[in-house]
C-alpha cells in the first residue's frame, strides 16, 4: 500500500464516521431521551431511567386522534393517486416524441413547486368554491404532487413492457379492456404496490403542504409540530422511537429476504 492509498483510506474512514454520526446521532439521542425522566426531551442531564413516557404516549388521545387522521388521509390519497398516476403514465407512453416531452414537463411541474405553494393554491381555489380546509383538501393538495411519483414509477416499469404481448392478446380476440386487465395491469402490479407504499409514506410525512389546508383537522405531523410550542414531552420521543424501531426491523427483514432471494438465484 502506498502513501496515496493510505491517505485515501484515512479520508474515507474519517468521512464515513462523520457522515454516519451525523445521520444517526440525532436519532439515537431522540430515542434515548424517551427513557429520561426529564419533562423536556433531552439526555442531559439524565434524571433517572423511566418507561413512564410510553404510558404517557398511550394516554395521549390527541396523538392517537391525529394518527387516525393521518391514516384516513393516506388511505384516500392512495385511492386518488394510483388510478390517476397510472393513467398519466399510460397517456405519456402513448404520446409521440414532442408531445411527450411537453406533457412530461407539465406532469413533473408539481414536484418542482414548493410544498407551501401547493397548499396555498389549493386553499384559495376551494375557498372560492365555499370549501374550507380539512381532510378533503389535505387529500387533494397532497395528491396533486404525489401523483407525480406514481406516474414516474409506473412509467419506468412500462418502459420495460414488451408491446407484442398486447398484440398477441388482441390477436387472440381479447377486448381492449381484457388486454388492460389481464396483461397490462398484472405487469404493472409491482410498480403499483411500490408506488402505493411510497404514497402512504409521502402522505404521512407531509407537513409543508398539509399545514395550509388542514383547517381544523390535525394530522400527525401538525400535531407533533404544535406540541413543540405547547409543551413537548418525551411522549413524542416514544412515538419516534417506535417508528424508528419498526423501520429498522423492516429494513433488516428486507435485506435478509433480498440476500436469501439472491442466493436462491
Amino acid at each position, binding site marked *: 500500500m502506498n502513501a496515496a492509498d493510505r491517505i485515501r483510506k484515512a479520508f474515507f474512514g474519517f468521512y464515513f464516521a462523520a457522515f454516519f454520526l451525523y445521520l444517526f446521532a440525532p436519532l439515537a439521542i431522540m430515542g434515548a431521551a424517551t427513557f429520561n425522566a426529564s419533562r423536556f426531551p433531552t439526555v442531559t442531564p439524565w434524571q433517572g431511567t423511566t418507561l413512564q413516557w410510553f404510558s404517557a404516549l398511550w394516554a395521549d388521545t390527541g396523538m392517537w386522534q391525529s394518527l387516525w387522521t393521518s391514516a384516513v388521509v393516506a388511505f384516500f390519497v392512495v385511492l386518488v393517486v394510483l388510478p390517476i398516476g397510472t393513467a398519466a403514465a399510460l397517456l405519456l407512453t402513448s404520446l409521440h416524441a414532442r408531445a411527450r416531452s411537453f406533457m412530461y414537463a407539465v406532469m413533473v411541474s408539481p414536484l418542482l413547486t414548493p410544498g407551501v405553494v401547493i397548499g396555498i393554491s389549493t386553499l384559495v381555489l376551494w375557498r372560492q368554491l365555499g370549501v374550507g380546509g380539512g381532510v378533503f383538501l389535505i387529500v387533494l393538495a397532497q395528491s396533486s404532487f404525489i401523483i407525480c411519483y406514481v406516474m414516474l414509477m409506473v412509467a419506468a416499469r412500462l418502459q420495460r413492457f414488451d408491446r*407484442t404481448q398486447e398484440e398477441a392478446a388482441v390477436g387472440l380476440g*381479447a377486448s381492449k379492456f381484457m388486454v388492460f386487465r389481464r396483461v397490462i395491469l398484472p405487469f404493472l402490479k409491482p410498480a403499483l404496490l411500490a408506488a402505493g407504499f411510497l404514497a402512504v409514506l409521502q402522505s404521512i410525512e407531509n407537513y409543508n403542504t398539509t399545514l395550509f389546508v388542514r383547517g381544523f383537522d390535525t394530522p400527525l405531523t401538525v400535531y407533533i409540530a404544535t406540541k413543540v410550542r405547547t409543551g413537548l414531552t418525551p411522549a413524542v420521543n416514544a412515538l419516534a422511537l417506535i417508528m424508528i424501531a419498526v423501520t429498522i426491523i423492516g429494513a433488516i427483514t428486507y435485506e435478509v429476504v433480498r440476500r436469501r432471494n439472491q442466493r436462491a438465484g
Partner: protein
Amino acid sequence: MSHSVELHSVGMSFGRTRAVSDVSFTVEAGEFFSILGPSGCGKTTILRIVAGFLQPTDGAVLIGGQDMAGLGPDQRPTAMIFQSLALFPLMPVWENIAFGLEARGVAKAERRKKADELLHLIALDGYGDRMPGELSGGQRQRVAIARALAVEPQVLLLDEPLSALDLKLRQHMRSELRSLQKRTGVTFIYITHDQSEALAMSDRVAVMSDGILQQVGAPRELYDNPATPFVATFVGETNIIAGEVSAIDNGIATVESTHGRLRGRAGDGLAVGKTARLYVRPEALEPDGNGGNRLTAEIESIDFEGAFALAHGRLDDGGELVASIASTRLGHAPSIGERASFAFADVNAVVLPDD
C-alpha cells in the same frame, strides 16, 4: 376446415417509405407456405397485413374468399406466433393457452380442459401450472403454438418463431412444426430469412426482396428454376458467369463468356445481343466430366463437410468457382494447386438477364 389466403396487389407505405409494392399470391387451404427473404425485405409487413395489425395502403387481402378490409386482428380467423413469442409471463402456462378462450367467454372448467388437451398435443402434459419463465426455449415455443391453436384459427401466422433457438433444437422444431401442421390441417404462413428452413418445411415458398415479390414456387422449383437473379443467388449457393447472349434455341441460351461458349436453360426476358449471367450450382459441376460446357480453375482449397466437400477454385479471369464433390468420389478429385476442368450439362444451368 382451413382457409385459403389471397393477396391482390397489396402495397404498404409508412409515410414516404414504401415497404411493400404490388404483392400478389395465393396460399391454398391447408398449405405450409413460407415467405423467405433477408431482413427488411417486407416479409414481416406482409404477415402483419394478413393478421390485421396493419391495413394495407393498396390492394386487398382475402381469407377463405372473404375480403378482410377494415377487420382488426381479433375479427380475423388468424392467429399469430410472434418472434418474441409474447407469452404472458405472469400467467401460468394453461392460462396462456386458454387466453383466447377466456376472451371468448368460455367457462373456466372448459378452458382448463381444452388447455390440457392442447398440452397433450404438444407433449407437455402436466406443465399447465408452470410459469412460462420456468420452461426451456423449445417448450415455450410449443406453448406459443398451443396458445395460437386454442382459438382454432383457420390460418396460423408464424413470424420467425425459431430464430431464438439453437441449431439442434431448431432442426428438431422444424419437423415438429411440419407434423403439427399436417395433423391439424391448418394453413401455415411462415416467415423466415433462413432458406434451408423454408426449403425443408414448406409446400411452397414466396421469395421477397426490397418489398417486391420475386418468385413463388415449390422448394425444388425455386432451386432449379430461379426466375430472377436474386432468387438464384439467395436460395442455395451458385456460381455466376457473366457474358453476352449469342443465341436462344429451343429454350437453351448460348452465352459468350471469357471462359468460352457456355449453354444453359433460358430464363424470361433474355434477348440475343444482351448481357446476361449464367448460374450453375456447385453440385452440377463435375470434375473431368462430359458435357459441352467447361470451366477451368486452379484449385485453392478443399473444405471437407462430411457428405461432400467443397472445392474452391480460381477461374482464369480471377473469378471464384465452387464445386461440390461427393465424399465417395473424393479419391478422384483434383488436388490443391492443380488446374482442373469442370463440366456441366445444359439443363443444369440457368441463364438470366442482368439486373
